[in-house]
């Protein structure tokens, strides 16, 4: 059975149509990367999944039931920034969800219960490679370490769905590569369903099992807001990656995506998305995807 069903989903703000006619089904364990030009509604879509934006028309179903209209523990989130709590140490951040669960009134654990929670949290922290920074505060961590912490914090809650809103957008390329490996291994290990927004198409191809492209296919220059974006492409891209992962645990040296010089790919991307009319883009994108793989 499908985990998430999107049935004729629309999002409108008054006259302005942001998203229109979305119809998709997502199964358990899929890794969906979402790309698209700025302002095309991909963040709005993610927020609808998160529960902070309402559905205007249509349905957004989780296990066949409408998604709760507010954020909840079954959906983890990592934002580009501000995902961790500045007033808690690494350990405190990761332990927080355990404490909230066991102590409804104070949100704090003491004694034996705390020991147990600490042990669980420490395992999680080690798994994301922050074992050395256990008692540091977020402001003492680098950007990459903060995002590792954010992942650990979300995953210890065992969410079914993990939402990532450009989580690596602010990181240096080298660190980004490390994070890719981490995300892939966590995805595997925790059997997550992931939705990830990215600006980096390379990242989208490399990480996802499906790549969604959000774009406006209809445009009326007289009324720029009259039509919303749709998911114009839904490309199965990730088989190879899954295959790679099965072969051996990823290592830092391997994960830099192979061929295709950066410059060339960017040019191709621009061509595909700015110059070629809608139907032609499918082919362009396929070529791009195939070339990339």
């Amino acid at each position, binding site marked *: 059975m499908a985990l998430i069903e999107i049935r004729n989903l629309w999002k409108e703000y008054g006259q302005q149509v942001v998203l229109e006619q979305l119809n998709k089904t997502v199964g358990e364990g899929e890794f969906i990367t979402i790309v698209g030009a700025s302002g095309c509604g991909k963040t709005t879509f993610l927020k609808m999944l*998160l529960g*902070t934006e309402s559905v205007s028309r249509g349905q957004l179903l989780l296990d066949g039931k409408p998604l709760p209209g*507010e*954020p*909840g*523990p079954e*959906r*983890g*989130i990592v*934002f580009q*920034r*501000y*995902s*961790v*709590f*500045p*007033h808690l140490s690494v350990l405190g951040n990761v332990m*927080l*969800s355990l*404490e*909230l*669960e066991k102590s*409804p*009134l*104070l*949100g*704090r654990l003491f004694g034996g219960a705390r020991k147990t929670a600490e042990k669980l949290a420490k395992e999680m922290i080690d798994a994301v490679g922050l074992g050395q920074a256990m008692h540091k*505060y*977020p*402001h*003492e961590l680098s950007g990459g370490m903060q995002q590792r912490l*954010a992942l650990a*914090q*979300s995953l210890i*809650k065992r*969410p079914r769905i993990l939402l990532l809103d450009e989580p690596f957008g602010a990181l240096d390329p080298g660190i980004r590569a490390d994070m890719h490996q981490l995300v892939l291994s966590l995805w595997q290990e925790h059997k997550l369903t992931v939705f990830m927004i990215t600006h980096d198409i390379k990242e989208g191809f490399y990480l996802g099992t499906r790549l969604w492209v959000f774009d406006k296919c209809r445009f009326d220059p007289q009324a720029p807001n009259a039509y919303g974006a749709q998911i114009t492409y839904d490309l199965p891209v990730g088989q190879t990656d899954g295959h790679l992962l099965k072969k051996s645990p990823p290592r830092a040296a391997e994960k830099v995506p192979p061929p295709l010089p950066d410059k060339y790919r960017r040019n191709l991307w621009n061509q595909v998305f700015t110059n070629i009319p809608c139907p032609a883009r499918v082919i362009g994108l396929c070529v791009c995807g195939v070339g990339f793989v």
Partner: protein
Amino acid sequence: MKKLINRVPGRTARWILGVLPFVLCLVLYLAASNARLAENENDKLLPSFSSFAGAIERMAFTPDKRSGNYLLWQDTASSLWRLSLGLGLSALLALVIGILNGAIPYMRAPLSPFITAISLIPPMAILPILFIVFGLGELAKVMLIVIGIAPFLIRDVQQRALEIPAEQLIKAQTLGANTWQIIVRVLFPQIMPRLLASVRLSLGAAWLFLIAAEAIAATEGLGYRIFLVRRYLAMDVILPYVVWITLLAFLLDYVLRKISRMCYPWFHAQIQTAEN
């Protein structure tokens, strides 16, 4: 020659420059005081430093003839008690109402405009009403401080609570937190150092309201003493009291800053990073 904005005094120079205005004030006072004392050796307006010493000796280290109390310490104790009660109560109100306002839109909608309006009322303008509601005793003095600074603190805390990134509140919900848990684990600990900072900012106003309250009706207190001895122009008492109040205010500010740095190191490190 470098531009003026690029020329920075060294450590010693900075120290000397910092002390200079104080020394200048002192010299100015001494000159003026000597000029007046030469005309009238009993001048009350600008007494000599020996009269200050005498007054301090009398107020701080000699029991009062009538009551047998050491007046300065008695005044200090009751003023500080009122001040800390007023500040503490205001901070508590600010914490509760400010965080609730910041966190819960259904609290904010009715309360925020009301508190904004309240904070704009000059408390001294509604003194007669305050008397009728709170009487003339200790409660009234503490309440004048509370009415004077609590609305400001509440608004500030509310603002700070709203400034906490929405991402954090969403994140907390995805970690399973309910409203109450978000308040106690996310908002409260992050508001505390900010509250301490605004309490420090409102210290000046708190002193002002305290002294005004003590001037209106009191039997002891630093403000009471100043307004009482003003009746016979005892500047030899008033000026040391003013210096003492300044010193107390400075110490209070210092202690609050230290507490904040000790309890919330992450907050101050954050501010420093932001400044860099």
